[in-house]
């Protein structure tokens, strides 16, 4: 697993402790029951803190899955 995946998985696990690492990789608003608006704010705060990215207000509505957040970090931070 790449460094970005490891760190992002840790972020997800801290907010959704019941998810296994495998479940994290496919996590989305639809598949994770606890992914409500408060969990989304917490998750994005953790991600911003971990990767030093600033998520714009208009981008928040797009970041609704592990893969979407993964892509966002890569495109904004250059982390591979």
């Amino acid at each position, binding site marked *: 697993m790449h460094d970005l995946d490891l760190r992002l998985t*840790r972020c997800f696990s*801290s907010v959704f402790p019941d998810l296994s690492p495998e479940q994290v990789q496919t996590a989305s608003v639809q598949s994770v029951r606890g992914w409500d608006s408060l969990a989304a*704010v*917490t998750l994005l705060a*953790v991600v*911003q803190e971990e990767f030093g990215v600033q998520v714009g*207000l208009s981008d928040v509505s797009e970041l609704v899955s592990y893969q979407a957040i993964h892509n966002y970090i890569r495109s904004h931070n250059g982390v591979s």
Partner: protein
Amino acid sequence: MNLIEALEVLKQPVPAGSPSIRVGLACGFTPLHLQTFLAAHLRQRMPGHGIEIVPGLFGDLAGNIERFASAKCDVLAIVMEWADLDARLGTRTLGGWRAENLPDILQSVDLSLSRIQQASRKSSGAVPVCVCLPTLPLPPLFATATRQAGAEELHLRSSVASFAANIAQESFVRIVSSQQLDELSSSAKRFNLQAELAAGFPYQVSHASAIADLMAALIQNPNPKKGLITDLDDTLWSGILGEIGVEGISWDLDRHSHMHGVYQQLLGSLASAGVLIGVASKNDAGRVQEALERKDLILPKDKVFPVEAHWAAKSESAARILKTWNVGPEAVVFIDDSPMEVAEVKAAFPEMQCIVFPRNDLAAIWSLLKQLRNLFGKSTVSPEDLIRMEGIRSGGALREMVTGDASSADDFLKNADAEIEFSFAKQALDTRAFELINKTNQFNLNGKRLTEAAWQEYLSDPATFLITVSYEDKYGPLGKIAVLLGKIQERRVRVDFWVMSCRAFSRRIEHQCLKQLCERFDVTEIIFDYQTTPRNGPLQEFFAAIAGAPMPAQLRVSRRAIQDKSPALFHRVKELVNA
């Protein structure tokens, strides 16, 4: 602590059966990460405790405080921001920043503060209340440029400061220090406009952590240390006394030794608040006495006791000082400029906090002064704090005389002209009584401690009693030195808590306490919730003499045994029913 670390802390399971603390978090914004950080910081500070944070309703700070007054919380944490005092001082509402709005905003803030003050007072009668005053910058609503503080802004700040000064006078109210928060969290990096607009949470994550850290410290409210043992050469003063003589040592600006004077000044301040100050110095005793007589010494000589000046190991000095003070090493701080001496004392007393006094490092000395204030800090200075040192001086002499044969002890106590005052007034706001319950070790019925909320709840039971005992003799007052808490059950008294300060030993006050309990409540038997602890040896000896050994957990002592086994008592007894 960052957010991911906080979430990791909260993932750790709490052992089954652990005590839990329920914290009412009153704020007007979405508590979000503040709630997470507060729980995490409390878990770190209070391991072995479950932490439950109960949030209030969005946008209603005063209402939340009022509701928490009856919500069975153990502590109330209030975190207020400007928008909670008037929504127009925030950014989520568009109520108007016109110049003609300002008088109404000022008035509205004063009304909000008044309501919060009343609600907080009500809560502080039942549980401890910790308050964080507004921490965020005011929005640019005033006519003045942001570089200038105008009359309206100053009025707002003055209103909040007055509110804080008033509420801080309440016994169980503690306010977060803005100065300390400034050190932890830069004011330019506090406000998170995006989170405020998106989620109603106005803080940067790091600022939420800083507030939660300080609030958790106030909620935990650790017991302050009791005594400080200091070295002399290159610590209390600059220079080696044995080499440069009494006039050579210094603590002044001219000789660049001023910080030693500031250190003395801090010790003087601690002593005036009841902290015991002793000296452990490898030096010639005569020279030390001479040096301590210097008129320009900032730390008054009479505030230092005992002075151990000789060439034996510092750990031996520390042991003797602990014995004189009758306190445990965990309650004492040792300071010396020699790392070797510090290590030697630390090896002998691992529980003692041992600190190296920094040499020629002004910033490090300044940090040390702040560290000491934190170790010894207390919310209020009680009358007992002011007389503690005198009590120890006279107590040492008294103990030596009383440990002789029984008749000489009788003679001595008969002539001591002692008066004991028993107060039966059930005052839940008696912070000295609460403090004694939570810091007394040696004469302690069972070693049990009470949280502030548990203390208030215990006393709210109509069947319970609180007795406080004050003592004075011709050698001086000792102040309030003993506390009994219990319940009346028909013709029996059940004592759940009984503590007495070690300063009051050897005066037969404990015998007088039992006599007064029997007489006051007219009972034939007293039941004690007794437990042996590693530290309550003096209490064990007392009960062994009265009730015989071994002692069961539900120790019963008859009135007859108390009468037969008590030595002669010579105190004048005063009773206060309604203090």
